[in-house]
Every structure is written in structure tokens, then in C-alpha cells.
């Protein structure tokens, strides 16, 4: 953009296309550009570089007024429930999160709540061994709600500070699977008041406009408290989280930037916004 000499219709189109290409969606990109045009008129902006700076500010505004960081309950265990569609990165994220919490001196237990997919329990078990935390699991095919129940009892009995629960991937349009998730949420809140203390939607950054439907339907089912945006180490920018934050008020709290247990970072609005234009 520093190549451009003046602000013209072509530049506006170019800026809007950067947003669309980041998966922000036409509707949200359009809205942000219209806001920027208003601002440019009011402030009589003449320089393209200034325009880009204001655009970044406008995008960052979407992320203000938010709960940063994961909630910790007054009484242990603090319970985190990980949900999301198939293959988004839930199980791997649990390994990373368990590692982070353990490193800050907490006793962490993880629950193998995916009793359906082939080798899902074994996969989480490998993470438990790697990180050095306890895992609660049942047989393949058993009721996920009963695994959650057992995990909560074990966490209380063993004084765990944190319990992180894995669930099976499910497409948000599958009515019976979403009902199963609702039931899991109810069992958790019945056993521990105010739990789950965080219900995190694990969302693949390469996802396009379907992410809004995912966020809406998962939110309707289990009231999301935040999003983990995974695979941001790829080339996708994850722009659809702007629409999600705008329309649903669900904040991105963490980002996944790789496949090892260290690859978890706090969401950084400045870094995210800069990356949209890099």
C-alpha cells in the first residue's frame, strides 16, 4: 500500500479484498471498509499509509472489551470443556494446555471424553504421558457423559486444580451429536456449580465462512466462553474470528501455532491484525 500515491476507489477495493482473502467474509469486510470510509471523510485522511493504520485500529477495536485469559474458579477443580468439529485440533490443544497449566505448578487431570473415534483415547493417552499428567478414560464406545462424571469425581478426590475434558469431533448440524454435547454440559454443571468454567470452541484457522455457523450452533448448545484458533502457523489468517466476535461476542483466547506441546499462545490482537496485512 505504500506504493500507492492517493486514496481512490481502486485502493478501497484493494483493502476490502485483503480482508475478504483473510476469510473475514464479504459482509464483515464491507462493514469495516464502510466505517473506514466515514472516518477517512471526517478526518480528511489523504495518505494511503494513514488509511491502513486506521484500518488496523478499526479491526483491533473488534477485540476490545474482552475477557483475556482463561477463568480460574475459586474452588477446585476448574473445569475446561473442549468442543468443535472433526479434526479442528481439540485433542492436541488439550495436550498443550495441560502442559502450560502443569508448568505453572498446577495439578492437571485430562479426561478422554471422545469414546467414539478410532484410537481417540490412545491419542490423548500419549499426550498424558508426554506432559506427565493423569488421564481418566473408559472403554471405547462407553457413554462420554459417564467418563466426564468419573473424571470430575477423580479430580475432586485427588485435589486436581484443573480438569480438561476432550470431546469427540462433531459437525454442528448433527442434531443427535449436539444433543449428546448438551447432555455432557448438563452433567458437568450438575456435579460442579458454575462448571464448565470455560467451554472453548476449537476452530481451525483454515475454515472459511462455515466457522460462523459452527460458532452459532455450538454456542446455542453449550454457551461458549471462548475460542482456540488452531493451525495459525499455516497461511490462513483466521479473519472469520472478527465476524464471530462481532456477531456473537465469543472472544478468541488462545491460538495454536504448531503440533508440539509448546505451540500454544495467548491471542494477541496486535499480532493478529498485523498478520492480516503481511
Amino acid at each position, binding site marked *: 500500500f505504500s506504493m500507492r500515491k492517493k486514496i481512490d476507489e481502486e485502493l478501497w477495493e484493494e483493502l476490502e479484498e485483503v480482508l475478504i482473502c483473510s476469510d473475514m467474509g*464479504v459482509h464483515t469486510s464491507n462493514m469495516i471498509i464502510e466505517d473506514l470510509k466515514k472516518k477517512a471523510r471526517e478526518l480528511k485522511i489523504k495518505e494511503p499509509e494513514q488509511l491502513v493504520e486506521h484500518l488496523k485500529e478499526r479491526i483491533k477495536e473488534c477485540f476490545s472489551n474482552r475477557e483475556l485469559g482463561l477463568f480460574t474458579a475459586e474452588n477446585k477443580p476448574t473445569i475446561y470443556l473442549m468442543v468443535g468439529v472433526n479434526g479442528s485440533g481439540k485433542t492436541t490443544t488439550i495436550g498443550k494446555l495441560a502442559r502450560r497449566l502443569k508448568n505453572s505448578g498446577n495439578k492437571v487431570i485430562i479426561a478422554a471424553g471422545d469414546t467414539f473415534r478410532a484410537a481417540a483415547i490412545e491419542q490423548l493417552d500419549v*499426550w498424558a504421558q508426554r506432559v506427565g499428567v493423569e488421564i481418566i478414560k473408559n472403554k471405547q464406545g462407553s457413554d462420554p457423559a459417564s467418563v466426564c462424571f468419573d473424571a470430575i469425581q477423580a479430580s475432586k478426590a485427588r485435589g486436581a486444580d484443573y480438569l480438561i475434558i476432550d470431546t469427540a469431533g462433531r459437525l454442528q448440524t448433527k442434531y443427535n451429536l449436539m444433543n449428546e454435547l448438551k447432555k455432557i454440559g448438563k452433567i458437568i454443571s450438575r456435579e460442579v456449580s458454575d462448571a464448565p468454567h470455560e467451554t472453548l470452541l476449537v476452530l481451525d484457522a483454515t475454515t472459511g465462512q*462455515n466457522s460462523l455457523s459452527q460458532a452459532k450452533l455450538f454456542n446455542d448448545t453449550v454457551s461458549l466462553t471462548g475460542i482456540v484458533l488452531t493451525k495459525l502457523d499455516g497461511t490462513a489468517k483466521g479473519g472469520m474470528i472478527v465476524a464471530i466476535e462481532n456477531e456473537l461476542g465469543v472472544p478468541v483466547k488462545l491460538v495454536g501455532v504448531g503440533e508440539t506441546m509448546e505451540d500454544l499462545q495467548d491471542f494477541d490482537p496486535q499480532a493478529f491484525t498485523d498478520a492480516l496485512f503481511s
Partner: protein
Amino acid sequence: SLGEKLQGIFKNLKRKGKLKEQDVDSVLREVRLALLEADVNLKVVKDFTKQVKEKAVGQEIWNSLTPAQLIIKIVKDQLTELMGSANSKLTFAPQPPTILMLIGLQGSGKTTTVAKLSNYLKKQGRNPLMVAADVYRPAAIHQLQVLGEQLKIPVFSMGDKQDPVNVCSGAVKKAVGLGCDVIIIDSAGRLHIDEDLMEELKNIKLKVRPHEILLVVDSMIGQESVNVAKTFEDQVGIDGVILTKMDGDARGGAALSVKAVTGKPIKFVGIGEKTDALEPFYPERIASRILG
């Protein structure tokens, strides 16, 4: 839906009398919007709407009694033509074993699709061998073995300490010994920008010469579909595409983007988590879905 939006536009335009070029542009904006909302890549959308405009002008839509229907028909026909004919044929080697390899981004559905494809081939009377060449992901080998047990299809593995190149060449030898006529290789998920892992794919290709390399793409992928597909095609070379998770409500615009940028056909579609949830690709169905 796009159809209703176009009807509305043309109703208003007809009141003004004769249609002009900028009227066609307002119609094309709706087409562009529908395609972007369906996750078709922006550059692909631009090329596509340009082609639609040429056809629309050529067919003189303003003389039509039902211009909205005509535009929809042009768009649908153009989409269907671009997606190629229904072609779920796999290349089989004149001398067995035929070697198929599935590649793609993390979590796209490769391992599950290897099982589905093997099941499909077994039902066709072939004798498949699945190859556990993902030595990185925790329990990836176990995942394929569990699927193999469910389907009564053998799985070749050398554990997770061996180089995937050695695993694949070992599998070819084993297939001959077992009398298997088709080998399906499950590879580890990888980023198209990971130089080492892309190199690994090139090395596997050099060593075992797969007859068919299939790119597995999650149907909910957004604008990066073009970058991803093009990079895999340029660096490794692909023969076809399998689009997964089409049992969801993603519009699947990636189908158009991937075909447009690689020219390679979509051969199969994944429509569920079970091992029988694989369908051949039907271009007109996907075209309707993309248009909403």
C-alpha cells in the same frame, strides 16, 4: 437464495426499460457475493464472473423474457462445466500392486478416507493393503490398525521410528507377498509451507512411484484452498482430489477453487465418519450446493 435475489434485481431493472451494461454488473455482483459466501476463492470468483458476463452478453439476456432464470442457468452450466465431468475413476497399474497415496493438511480426513477408499475397493473385489506412513501423530498408526480390524483389511506398519519412505517401500514388498493388488498409503498431515515435510512426500513419490496421488481437502476450507492445492500440485503433483465432511453445511466452494487452480478432478466425496461414507463426485450436485 441466489435465484430469489436475481429475480428481485431483474424485476426492478425491467421497470427501467432496456437493460444496459451496468445492469449486468449489478447482477454479477450478486453472483460474486453468492460465490464468496460459499468460500470460492476471490481470484477464481473474478475469473468466473468474467466468463459468465461474456456468456450473458453473448446471449443477450436483455431480450429474454426470463432473464433471472437465464442467468442462473448460465451460472449453473458454467459451474458444472468447470468442475469437470463426473470422473471417479482411479488409475490402476497394468501390473499389481497399484499404489495410491493420500496427502493433505492436518485434520483434513486422510486416515479415515484411506479406510473408506480401501473398503470401497474391497467391495469392488480388490485386495487392498493400508499403509501406516504417519509416524508423527500420536496413535496415528493405532488409528489405522483399529480401522483395519473393523474392515478386515490388513494394515502395514513399521512402527513410528522408521522413515516413512522406508515404510512405503516395505509396504510394496509386503503387498506382493500378501497378494494384495492395491496399496493405499496414509501420510501425515502437513502444512504446504513445511519444506521438510513436502520434501518427504517428494522422496516417497520418487521411491515408490504411486499411480495415483490424491489430495484430501476439508470441504469447509476458506480462501486458502487455492494456495494449498496449488502448492501441493506444484511441489508433489496430484492426480485427483477427495473432498471430506460434505455431510456438514459448508457450501464447499473449495471444490470450484481447487479444480480451477489445479485442473485435477474431484474423484470422491466424504459424507460421514463411518467407513462406508464415501461417494463418487457428482458435479451438478456440488454446483447447486455452492450456489445455495
